[in-house]
């Protein structure tokens, strides 16, 4: 031990460090170029959303016209409302179901648990397109049957989109909450019970408040997943139930117009605020 702790190796390291400085320059160059790569497209898009020209190629001066036009666009307003309704409902439901699932996996034992756990990870692993068409086929078949058997006329729309969003986001909530539960100090619960709290009181006043940061993180994740989802929404939206991503996709397919820049920039700002807000929240809670 004492031999290993002498200062003998130190001089050997310093020259190596100096020799590595060229290597470090290359490494930092990689970091710099990667950051440019990550930010250039969205910065260019945002800047050109203020461009007075209809054509993308040249800067013709500053204008807010595209934003004004977007805020007065009826289709955009409807799509934004749909997106928000779907995201709020699916976040609420998937946060509750996801938290319950996390508690089930971490706190109880039951026979088919490993099977259940495996099945729960599948929606995370399986490609979105596969889940999207599976739900399309399922809803299609169910609606046909319900129509033939009970004369019910159900259609694709906000309902099918919301059900689908819950199906792919609650496993993510479960994973996040479960991580929090795994390093949970159970002596706190025991202390509460020693002091006379029953199961429900322990859960309500000790477990739940301590789990809250995990639950909020899970809810934010569910909200973002729902607001951003395109593929599953695309296959399970009926006629007239457009969301913001579907609206953007439609416009991009029809040809690039500057109002898409404005709409995208607003979405970009919204998600940035969401992320920075959640980070600030986590920081405040951890200290």
């Amino acid at each position, binding site marked *: 031990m004492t031999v290993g702790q002498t200062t003998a190796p130190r001089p050997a390291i310093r020259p190596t460090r100096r020799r590595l400085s060229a290597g470090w320059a290359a490494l930092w160059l990689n*970091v710099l170029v990667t950051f440019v790569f990550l930010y250039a497209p969205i910065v260019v898009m945002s800047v050109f959303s203020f461009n007075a020209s209809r054509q993308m190629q040249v800067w013709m001066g500053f204008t807010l016209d595209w934003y004004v036009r977007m805020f007065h666009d009826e289709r955009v307003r409807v799509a934004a409302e749909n997106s928000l309704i779907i995201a709020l409902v699916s976040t609420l439901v998937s946060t509750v179901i996801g938290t319950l699932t996390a508690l089930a996996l971490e706190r109880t034992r039951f026979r088919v648990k490993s099977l259940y756990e495996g099945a729960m990870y599948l929606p995370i692993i399986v490609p979105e*397109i596969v889940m999207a068409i599976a739900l399309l086929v399922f809803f299609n078949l169910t609606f046909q049957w319900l129509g033939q058997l009970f004369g019910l006329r159900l259609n694709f729309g906000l309902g099918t989109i919301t059900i689908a969003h819950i199906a792919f986001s609650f496993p993510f909530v479960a994973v996040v909450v479960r991580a929090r539960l795994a390093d949970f100090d159970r002596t706190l619960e025991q202390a509460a019970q020693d002091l006379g709290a029953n199961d429900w009181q322990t859960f309500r006043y000790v477990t739940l408040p301590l789990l809250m940061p995990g639950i909020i993180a899970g809810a934010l994740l569910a909200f973002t997943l729902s607001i951003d989802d395109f593929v599953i929404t695309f296959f399970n939206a009926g006629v007239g139930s457009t969301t913001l991503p579907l609206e953007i996709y439609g416009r991009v397919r029809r040809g690039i117009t500057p109002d898409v820049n404005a709409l995208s920039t607003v979405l970009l700002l919204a998600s940035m605020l969401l992320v920075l807000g959640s980070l600030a929240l986590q920081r405040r809670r951890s200290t």
Partner: protein
Amino acid sequence: MAIVEQIQAGERTASWRERLGDAIRQREGLRALLLAGPGGLWLLLFFLLPTAIVFAYSFARRGPYGTVAWTFTLENYVRFFDWLYIRVFLVSVWLALLTTLICLLIGYPFAFVIARSPRRWRNALLVLVLIPFWTNFLVRTYAIMLLLRSDGLINNLLQRLGLIDQPLTMLFTPFAVVLGLVYGYLPFMILPIYASIEKFDFTLIEAAQDLGANAWHAFWRVLLPLTLPGVLAGSILVFIPSVGAFVTPDLLGGGKVVMIANLINQQFLTVRHWPFGSAVSFVLMAIVLAATMLYFRIGETRRI
């Protein structure tokens, strides 16, 4: 008498204990049911059952007007071996592998720098990586389209500098698709590698250098093997969404670069051959599950 009483008492405690055990077990069962029930029901109804139906469809025939005729057949899977579709499969796997490799080549040194930078910078650098990542995927793909178009910023700049006369065709090529995939999934590679380099004990590098290893050897023989779990996790996290990507090849490939997800979309919404579309989606699922299993297999053998 005394013995009988003792036995009776013993029996009573045993049965009492048993009953308590039963009660706890039953209550635990009930609790498990209440907690796991809603999630299980949702999974069963809106994931497992739909997937099972698609699986059944993949063995069915196409009826008139795009309906599904329930006669068992393997022709959908046989049809996949047509060169037309095998090509789509090969292109998808190739582009996904290329994306994974590029992400690895950029992401490993990137993660290394973040992990070795002063502690107070690390979180800021990670947040900077995550901000574009958290913005809508479609928006990011669209932003790349703006740059790559023939009248986009890159072509404009190159033409003004006099480096090219004609605008380069970048959009609607495999290059654009790979660029879009790398842009989309790079953080999936950076984060797990960062996590494993951050945990790495760097005195091991000093030890290796004391024993005469140069920087390259220290990296190749010590750092890389010990951070391999992060590399594997990152690779699987990039490969899986890349091979099943729909939006990126659709917008950046513009119908010229067709990947498996585009084929599925086409079979369902345009051609309306649902059984064949179902078979293709099961082939995609098989690729993804095989990759996941391979990942866990490698992880296991490494631990031994």
